[in-house]
């Protein structure tokens, strides 16, 4: 358990975004982008940031299944839901309390609900293999 725990912070947004993405107006969009940028800089400065980015709308996704003899391609996201992954952060945090506090800040900055999920660790993979 020597490595710092990593978490995926995912933000969900509407499947059919407006012309301003998930935001009601252009000002709101620009403000959210600015706040998110500032939040990302803070993550970077405090040594939490591993990676962060936003995604194009889910309508641009292609789903691939390469398990069969012939690869199957489907236009669109894997799950048909009302909300889709819109962006995410991968962060390092000492524990869940730290990750949750950062997620709350990120949620406020990007104007979205954030799901916090831990990554597997070397230790948990080992336990999985042993079970």
């Amino acid at each position, binding site marked *: *358990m020597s490595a710092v725990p990593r978490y995926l912070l995912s933000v969900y947004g509407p499947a059919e975004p407006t012309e301003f993405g998930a935001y009601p107006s252009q000002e709101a969009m620009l403000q959210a982008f600015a706040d998110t940028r500032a939040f990302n800089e803070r993550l970077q400065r405090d040594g939490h940031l591993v990676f962060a980015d936003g995604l194009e709308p889910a309508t641009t996704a292609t789903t691939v299944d390469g398990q069969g003899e012939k690869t199957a391609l489907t236009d669109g996201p894997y799950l048909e839901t009302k909300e889709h992954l819109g962006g995410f952060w991968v962060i390092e945090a000492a*524990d*869940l*309390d730290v990750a949750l506090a950062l997620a709350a800040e990120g949620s406020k900055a990007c104007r979205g609900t954030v799901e916090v*999920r831990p990554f597997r660790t*070397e230790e948990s993979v*080992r336990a999985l293999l042993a079970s």
Partner: protein
Amino acid sequence: MTGCTVEQAITRVHHEEWARVVAGLARRFSDLDVAEEATAEAFAAAAERWPREGVPPNPGGWLATTATRKAIDRLRRESQREAKHQAARIVYDSPPEPTGPVEDDRLRLVFTCCHPALAMEARVALTLRLLGGLTVPEIARAFLVQETTMARRITRAKAKIKAAHIPYRVPSADDIRERLAGVLAVVYLVFNEGYLASEGDEPVRVDLTDEAIRLGRLLRTLLPDGGEVAGLLALMLLTDARRPARVSRTGELVTLAEQDRGAWDRTLIAEGNALVRERLEAVAAGGDPPGRYQLQAAINAVHTNAPSARDTDWSTIVALYDHLMQLDPSPIVRLNRAVAVAEVDGPGVGLAEIDRLAEVLDAYHAFHAARADLLRRLGRGGESRAAYDRAISLAGNPAERAYLTRRRDQLAG
């Protein structure tokens, strides 16, 4: 030493030491699973050996040592098993060096079990298992779910704590008030589930009320300055003190007004009153204003100090509810306040207040029971009967149903 006294000694030591042993192991091995199972094994060893060998002079120390040995054995076995799959060498966390003032490990365990990232039912189950030392079958029975369901709930919660790295730590000063409120909510939920058993055949489930009070006492030991901690313990004691008078011999609920006050437990009342007094003095001396548990405890103290329902200081109760409504303007608090208002200003005034809650509380049996009673007192028999019918159909507690049925059937006409 006879078998009986050893058994009693084991029960007592179980109450006193279980949480301490689990908490100590959890810190040392950073693993709740290991802590729980090693502790259970140590108690099983005690149950087997103490009747033969006698109770050791320091039972807590014996259990902690035995449990630590069991935990190390277990980790060794696991690391050997893992070694077969992978050559990776397991590295155990060395216990973190204490940095601040020495904290009771049990307090860390409290905050981990009641972490807000866990669902409420998971918090309750973990708290009863890891702090209360109840077995999985006992907890399953208390919440009327299958044993496998409860076992899965606990396993899943422990797995989340481990995978998500929920910390084993007392929250920082900034967060502690909010987090502590969450802990107290878990304990009070356990108490109410016992006291107001909403399902099943038993009107009061003493196993749960006793356990909640035990947890309340533990929190009081760990956080002696916590006003709401004292308030919750006082509230539970003053409520539980009335338990002997609360259900009649025929299994019917007895309301506060009709209870035999001589049957109330004076020892619990004295203890609860002392806590309420302590808080009143602390608040008067400039401490934090009272929270919801302290106010509810104060309301209960007014009841337990009154010689009869008639001679109760209802104005003070209304004033306390006014205060409570500022903190928690929920319909249930408003309902309780309206019942007290009816005692001060008459049933008509109380009924008018209650009727304002009709929409939000329509599915709540106590709303209809309170209405039925006030309508009866106002001589509106037909409406009262309808309200009793509704209350009976919604009440889950058998003693309460029996009481409501009798009151309905006593209505003239």
